[in-house]
């Protein structure tokens, strides 16, 4: 395990979610799940973060914000889409104002399903993301996975 995966600092952003997934992200920080055990720190600041945990289907107005935040994270970095909304648009897929998932806007490295996504799944998703982060730090993984909606 490289150094990257020993100290994953996260930025959580709500990309137009319903809150369900967001409070589960917060729950991960609290005593019952306590992700600080893995060195995970919720930074609240893109400039300090290694992992972007993002929920929601991304609406018209949020596109710009998501892109900004992603751009402001220093390399190497990974993106984890949390919850059905973030992975595919979920039930809001057909709404006029949503893009339908994070990968419509920025490249996503790990998709975590669930509505709402469970804290355990979030932790698993982060662990999976750490693998990508390590590869990227070692220059072994491409910096960006291709963007684009996967048509199911």
């Amino acid at each position, binding site marked *: 395990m490289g150094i990257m995966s020993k100290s994953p600092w996260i*930025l959580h*952003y*709500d*990309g*137009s*979610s*319903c*809150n*369900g*997934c*967001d*409070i*589960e992200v*917060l*729950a991960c920080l*609290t*005593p*019952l799940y306590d992700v600080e055990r893995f060195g995970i720190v*919720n*930074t*609240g*600041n*893109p400039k300090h973060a290694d992992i972007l945990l993002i929920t*929601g*289907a991304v*609406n018209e*107005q*949020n596109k710009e*914000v998501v892109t900004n*935040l992603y751009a402001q994270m220093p390399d190497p970095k990974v993106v984890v889409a949390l919850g059905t909304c973030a992975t595919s648009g*979920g*039930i*809001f897929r*057909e*709404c*006029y*104002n*949503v893009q339908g998932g994070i990968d419509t806007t920025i490249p996503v490295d790990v998709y975590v399903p669930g*509505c*709402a996504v*469970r804290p355990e799944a979030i932790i698993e998703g982060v662990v999976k993301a750490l693998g990508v982060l390590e590869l990227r730090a070692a220059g072994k993984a491409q910096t960006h996975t291709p963007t684009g909606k996967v048509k199911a």
Partner: protein
Amino acid sequence: MGTRTVIPFGPQHPVLPEPVHLDLVMEDEKIVEAIPSLGYVHRGLEKLAAKKDFNDMVFVSERICGICSFIHSMAYSTAIENIMKVEVPERAQYLRVMWAEMSRVHSHLLWLGLAADALGYESLFMHSWRVREKVLDVIEETSGGRVIFGTCKIGGVRRDVDAATLDKTLKMFDDIEVECQEIVHVFAGDPSVHKRVAGVGILSKDDAYALGAVGPVLRASGVTWDARKLGYAAYGKLEWEPVVETGCDVPARVLVRAKEIFQSIGLIRQAIKKMPKGPVEVRVTGNPNGETIMRVEQPRGELVYHIQANGTKNLARFRVRTPTFANIPPLVKMLPGCELADVPIIVLSIDPCISCTER
């Protein structure tokens, strides 16, 4: 360079769990102007009614918000049931009250934690959420979901809860009540919290009423108004009184929500104890035709569903006015004149829920 400081507060801001933005204009740290901008969570889900079967709209409505999801689905279901004149079985009505109140307890605990956090009181946040996890356990055991209950449907509820689980629920809440007492005791009695919040975020009784404040914000300003008194579900058959405080400031709002936690636990007990045996749903056939304006009490206040149906499976209008939407003008009123350090707690004092607000 300017004569005043101008900073963006949000959309991504660690004290805001959700994206919302305020243009803060300050002199030193005093806020002279705070203009909100919304729209970061506007999904446009009201328009889904044109595409989705009215039955499926329950799933949409409970995903308006992951915190107050159950009451959304209950409000929507009740609205349709009213239009279609469906008699919902009594047991379902009591179960709805039980889940609605569980949802309120978890929402209020969540809020207490976030409010503590907004004051930089991390350990209190941690402890509030530690207790909240116990509530979530009960919710999961009875409904199958932690935050999206998924139990309400038109005509009743999707699942029954067996007697043993109800018993266990009662016991769990005895424990939760004790823990909540401790949290509330700490929150209300902590000198550093007091120093920070006393007299902060004043909203006079008249302002609260005139600006259309709802829920704990309204009740903390001394107005007795609680939509549950309208008696939907089984509320008409239970004994309780709205919690009202007259402090008009942040501590009063803390107190209202704190007391409502115990009120809700009391209601859960009553509901479980008075719950009759019987079926939990009726079969609903046909399409609704008619109109109703349904009001229920969410953790954050009065929620309004305006439903117009035209006899097809798609509703003519699915309109949701959420409590936070109503509490935005009071918030805009409260901010100017406060200190930057107080912005988080004042914003949180209305317990904002943007996903509800913008739908």
